[in-house]
């Protein structure tokens, strides 16, 4: 299915209707659904969340656009509700967290491999190894706190082993900033990647900040505090790769185009019939939003949207296991650290980041404690211990 961003009209805004019953549909089955359906739901919630975040920021700075933005934003909010409410009530916040980290690993790996700009690809790989470690730490927490194997969520697609140790990921804020792409020279795919990864990481940060206090266990509260702090670093990293000289209108158009790209990517690979129908419906809604924004761009800003948007979409995000790629990145780049916007070997890491890390870890490291000696095994640590006892 070929999409033309400039010509495809989608569903016009005035025909995008919801009811409360429509917003609250049948949730997916935690037990039966393929892990990538859950991955897509989690990411698309993040994509919609970013659309609201951007729209509000834009409205605060642009009186002339407020009415246009408000009309589209109401639809986006209802879309986000419908998508996020597909997650089932028997999927605990910690199990959903495992899903969030699987998103961060498999989607970042997909983007990094497809990314045409070598520096942006390096930035993505840098973040990838950190989120990869978060999955391992949260999996240890899920096993040691509740006796649940995280692979019941990740379903064998994603390795559960240490990445760049979370304890080493804490950096000085100046070492989280990266160089932006050049809006005039960057490939459209680079821009879509940047907006996608920023959306996912921002939602991940917000999710951990929301659910950290939900836990009674002090170790869980500390681990969520620690990893939420890294996700905030990641938001800083990923928002800085976006060219800050893009105009508000340009950014709005790119947000809408990115939503089209993401729903299109979901639709192309979804097997779950009910969820697939939702992706199809919302792809049409987003094409409607894009057309609406294109009209605003022409009428209010008197600019040609073709200056900012490609006609066609790149190949969809590859929703599949990227196990071999991730392992190779881990072997090659686990010891990289950041010096400002550059990546260096850990021996060259600036003193400011070392000092900051020393301070934050002064009372101990929750991510080290939770996974002390822990290794993934089918069914969890208690089953592995039983096997050891039987062997003895």
């Amino acid at each position, binding site marked *: 299915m070929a999409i033309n961003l400039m010509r495809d009209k989608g569903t016009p805004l005035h025909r995008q209707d919801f009811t409360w019953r429509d917003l609250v549909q049948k*949730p997916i*089955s*935690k*037990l*039966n*659904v*393929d*892990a990538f359906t859950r991955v897509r739901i989690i990411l698309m919630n993040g994509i919609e969340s970013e659309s609201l975040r951007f729209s509000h920021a834009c409205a605060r700075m642009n009186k002339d656009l407020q009415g246009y933005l408000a009309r589209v934003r109401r639809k986006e909010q209802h879309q986000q509700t419908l998508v996020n409410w597909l997650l*089932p*009530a*028997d999927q605990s916040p910690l199990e959903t967290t495992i899903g969030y980290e699987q998103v961060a690993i498999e989607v970042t790996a997909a983007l990094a491999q497809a990314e045409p700009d070598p520096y942006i690809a390096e930035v993505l790989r840098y973040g990838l190894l950190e989120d990869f470690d978060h999955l391992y730490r949260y999996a240890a927490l899920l096993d*040691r706190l509740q006796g649940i194997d995280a*692979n*019941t*969520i990740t*379903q*064998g*697609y994603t*390795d*559960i*082993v*240490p990445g760049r*140790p979370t304890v080493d990921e804490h950096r000085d804020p100046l070492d989280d900033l990266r160089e932006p792409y050049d809006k005039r020279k960057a490939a459209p795919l680079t821009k879509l990647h940047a907006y996608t990864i920023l959306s996912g990481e921002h939602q991940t940060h917000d999710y951990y900040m929301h659910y950290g206090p939900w836990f009674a*266990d*002090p*170790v869980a509260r*500390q681990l969520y505090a620690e990893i939420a702090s890294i996700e905030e670093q990641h938001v800083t990293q990923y928002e800085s790769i976006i060219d800050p000289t893009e105009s508000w209108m340009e950014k709005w158009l790119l947000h809408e185009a990115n939503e089209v790209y993401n729903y299109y990517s979901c639709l192309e690979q979804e097997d779950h019939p009910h969820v697939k129908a939702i992706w199809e419906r919302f792809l049409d809604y987003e094409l409607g939003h894009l057309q609406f924004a294109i009209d605003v761009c022409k009428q209010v800003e008197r600019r040609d949207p073709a200056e900012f948007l490609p006609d066609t979409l790149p190949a969809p995000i590859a929703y599949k*296991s990227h*196990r071999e790629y991730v*392992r190779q990145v*881990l072997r090659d780049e686990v010891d990289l650290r950041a010096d400002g916007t550059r990546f260096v070997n850990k021996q060259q890491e600036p003193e400011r980041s070392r000092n900051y890390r020393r301070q934050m870890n002064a009372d*101990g490291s*929750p991510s*080290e*404690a*939770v*996974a*002390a*000696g*822990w*290794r*993934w*095994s*089918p069914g969890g*640590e208690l089953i592995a211990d039983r096997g050891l006892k039987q062997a003895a």
Partner: protein
Amino acid sequence: MKSPQSMGMNRSGIDLSTQGAEEMMKAVDEFPPASGGNGMTLSQLRAPYFAEADPVGSIPLPGTLKGAAKSGMQKLLGHHAEVLIDQLAGRLAFERTGTRLYDALIGKFMTRRDEATMLSVDQLQQFRAEEAAHLGLCWDALHQLGADPTAVTPMADTNAVASIGLMQVIADPRMTIAQSLHAIHVAELADNDGWRLLVKLAREMGQDEMAGRLQAALEEEERHLASLRTWMEQIILHEAGAQ
């Protein structure tokens, strides 16, 4: 009666991704744990929190001097009256939630009666009414002691936290009548022992008249539990085709 359970594509186990599991084990060998130690390391991190924790809250003092001077309270002199108040408030909270659990179960059962033909709405309604009456009993007993029955005591809070999962099961439309009954069964097991303890506590603290009323509630709770045990057995054996 047909079984609402079915065999299907459950993807949570490793049998559906044996290759994935094998690869994961290879990864564990190549990238071993970064830090030494074991699960006990977590205990060390928790220990200072356990040592320094504040309580979740306190048991409220009687709201009025008049209340504190009531006859029931006088008999408690020399005992820790707050323990009885806390336990009564805990039962009050549990009965209130228990009544809502039955409300939720009855609502589900009204449209899914074919899943459990041995159940009757009348009997569920009766149990629900008795749970509601029991909360009134606790409310009155707290008043009699001069305590404020609207306050959330630590035991009431404990019961509210412990009940969260039970309501999650019954309120979820995907959970069957049998699965919902399981949640009620868990509630009734805890409820039964809770009432037993409360009767004993009231007697030991010289509240014989109160204990008599609590004993009557306990007997109704025992009937609930006996019925739940029977229903659970019947429904599971029937689903299994064993009856």
